[in-house]
């Protein structure tokens, strides 16, 4: 036994032990140049073995280490042996060849992690336009973005977060446009994340947002690559982790959540109409049930005669107060919604029909809930589902409960009180320290119309002013 073989045996055992003899961990001696023995190690589950084999063959046949950069190629790097880093590289899906003689590691970066193909994000359908959604893979995601922004000014920064999971988090922005303060804030907040395990995008959101306890999302979550590209081009920053196909975009304003790519893919007038409809739906979804409860229990005289007669006949035999009635229905609706999300599509539809038609009809016939209330709650539900962002959608559905309670106690006054609190809260909110409720507040009259109108593209627009990008560039 040569000295080399001894050394090799020791290292092999050590390696296997330090990787706890994992079943997919491979470490074996191979012969390298001039009878030199090297150790090859990799995780068989995350390495593209065929390609690695081809590269190793090429190395052994065509390269000698007297060349200056002999080990450098697209896939390979040579660095001095470092046992600590070795584990990290292997976990990232690299294959490492350890040369015992020179104490060098040859890293072959050809990982093959499981990921799915890009397809249309199910939560953000569009009628027309791009259907490429993000996937749970760094390279694919970035290629989707780079494909849309072919500019060297698109900067990507990477960070590894979580002491155990070593999750890759990366953020990107346009170097010439980005809002510097927001960028610093993001970097600072990412640096401050001290956790062992990072497994969901929600964790990231909690660390990055300004107000965790607010019901309103302050970072836009999207899986659509065209939406991310558009956001980045406006000077925003996108944060993506390797774990999830959801990107976080900030800073955003409240009204960003009410826009969809469809607005821009379609015609200006239709786009504007639907944009206004969505803003209206926000008001409807939050205030309609509260308004109805307030009218029924406090301000019945507000209704014109004909309508009031209708409603009076309808609600006369309902045993409960309107607030209870509303809660019964709203909770039924939420139950149906919650139940149908996680079920397979086919069953989910059945639940929808059973819930909507059967329960809805039965509950009215049983005299628990009035027809009027069914109409109101159904309208509200539709109003809340109109909102393009699933997160804001949930917020709005939660928001109407406090309003309903206030309305049942104090009528219109309660709604006014709630509206004032809501308004102040929205004013207090910031997204990456940028005002959340722009352009309404701070009042930017020249921007205001954009909430309602989708401008034609040829009209030279100005850079958005809701935050401060470096350059006032025409879009």
């Amino acid at each position, binding site marked *: 036994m040569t000295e080399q073989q001894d050394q090799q045996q020791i290292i092999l055992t050590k390696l296997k032990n330090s990787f706890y003899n994992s079943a997919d961990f491979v470490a074996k001696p191979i012969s390298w140049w001039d009878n030199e023995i090297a150790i090859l190690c990799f995780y068989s589950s995350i390495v593209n073995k065929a390609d690695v084999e081809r590269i190793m063959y090429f190395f052994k046949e065509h390269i000698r280490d007297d060349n200056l950069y002999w080990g450098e190629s697209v896939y390979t790097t040579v660095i001095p042996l470092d046992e600590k880093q070795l584990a990290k590289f292997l976990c990232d899906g690299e294959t490492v060849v350890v040369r015992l003689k020179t104490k060098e590691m040859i890293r072959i970066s050809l990982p093959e992690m499981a990921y799915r193909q890009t397809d249309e994000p199910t939560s953000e359908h569009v009628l027309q336009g791009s259907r490429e959604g993000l996937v749970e893979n760094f390279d694919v995601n970035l290629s989707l973005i780079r494909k849309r922004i072919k500019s060297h000014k698109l900067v990507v920064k990477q960070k590894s977060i979580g002491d155990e999971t070593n999750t890759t988090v990366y953020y990107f922005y346009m170097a010439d446009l980005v809002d510097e303060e927001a960028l610093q804030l993001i970097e600072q907040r990412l640096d401050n994340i001290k956790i062992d395990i990072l497994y969901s995008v929600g964790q990231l959101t909690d660390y990055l947002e300004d107000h965790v306890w607010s019901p309103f999302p302050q970072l836009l979550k999207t899986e659509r690559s065209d939406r991310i590209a558009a956001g980045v081009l406006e000077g925003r920053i996108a944060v993506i982790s390797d774990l999830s196909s959801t990107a976080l975009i900030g800073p955003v304003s409240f009204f960003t959540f009410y826009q969809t790519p469809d607005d821009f893919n379609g015609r200006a007038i239709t786009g504007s109409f639907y944009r206004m409809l969505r803003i209206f739906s926000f008001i409807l979804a939050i205030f309609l049930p509260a308004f109805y409860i307030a009218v029924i229990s406090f301000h*019945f*005289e507000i209704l014109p*005669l004909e309508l*009031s*007669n209708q409603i*009076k*006949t309808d609600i*006369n*035999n309902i045993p409960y107060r309107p607030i209870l009635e509303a809660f019964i229905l709203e909770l039924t609706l939420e139950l149906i919604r919650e139940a149908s999300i996680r079920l397979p599509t086919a069953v989910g539809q059945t639940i929808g029909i059973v819930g909507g038609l059967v329960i809805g009809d039965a509950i009215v016939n049983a005299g628990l809930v009035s027809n009027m209330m069914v109409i109101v709650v159904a309208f509200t539900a539709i109003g809340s589902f109109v909102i393009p962002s699933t997160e804001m959608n949930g917020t709005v559905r939660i928001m109407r409960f406090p309003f309903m309670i206030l309305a049942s106690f104090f009528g219109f006054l309660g709604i006014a009180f709630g509206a004032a609190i809501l308004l102040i809260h929205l004013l207090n909110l910031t997204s990456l320290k940028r005002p959340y409720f722009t352009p309404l507040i701070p009042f930017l009259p020249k921007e205001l119309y954009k909430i309602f109108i989708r401008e034609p593209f040829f009209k030279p627009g100005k850079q958005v002013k809701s935050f401060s990008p470096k350059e006032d560039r025409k879009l």
Partner: protein
Amino acid sequence: MKGIYAYSEALQDSTEITVIEAEGKSPREVRLNAEMKVEQSIDLSMLSAFILGEDLATDGLEKYLDVFYRDPYNSLTAFVVIAKGSVKDYIDASKSWSAEAGEYYSRLIRSAEILSYVPEYTLQTTGATLNSKGTDLVLPYITLDEKQQRPQLGGVALFSKGKYTGRVLKPDQSKVIGLLLQKKGRKIQFSFFYNNKPLSITVMDVKKKWKVTSSNSIKLDYDLQMDIQELSGDNLTDTKKIPEIEKFLEQKITEEIEKVITVLQEEKSDVLGVGNFVRVAKPEMFDENWHETFAELDIAVNVKGKILKVGIIK
């Protein structure tokens, strides 16, 4: 005083009309007493017509109306109607109808308004008129037919200084008041015999111009635009006939107006708001005794008519 409430009660799938009667010193007390007789409280927010017996109206309206203005829950868009005889009969009559009493009476008044038989007054504008010194109130007046079954429009009740004068203008005369006070969108129809053949017209638009000519006289100029609705036998192939008809109509309508104005002056009821006009045009003529001045006023009426359309046949 006595008050009667007719309201609908919501049942399973229909409504039923209930009538309650109560007495009290004031409208509010009547309502309180009425509430004691039913199992629920009376909600006047859906009030659609307020019918007042003519004997109560004679000593001033204001005291009955105060409660309606003071309580924010009340509807001020209801109609105020003066009824001949006992109000109870009118409500009792409603029991046999399918419509509610309130709804029925408000529809009755509204359709009369469109034809200008009664000027537009709601509870609110009634109050505004009562408080205005230069104009008087005129309210719809209803009567019952002999069988006490159907109420019908009996014309308008004339007021002077907020009190009912006891004088009623029949519908064919009350529409003249509608003409003189013309509002947009109202159609006023007249029928006459022209050469013994019926001639009906609709006044589509009125332009009025009033002028104070001396300290005791006033001139009312009216420009009417008319459509011919009916003119049997004699067709209008000859356009020369039209000025003739116009002249005839001018003369007839002037007569009608003059008759009405005589009545108004007799009753010292300035329903046209001449006082408000004089107050602006010639302030020295207007004072506390305006109603006396009005009665003595020399009012000249000058009507100009123009036939614009004759329908689809000549």
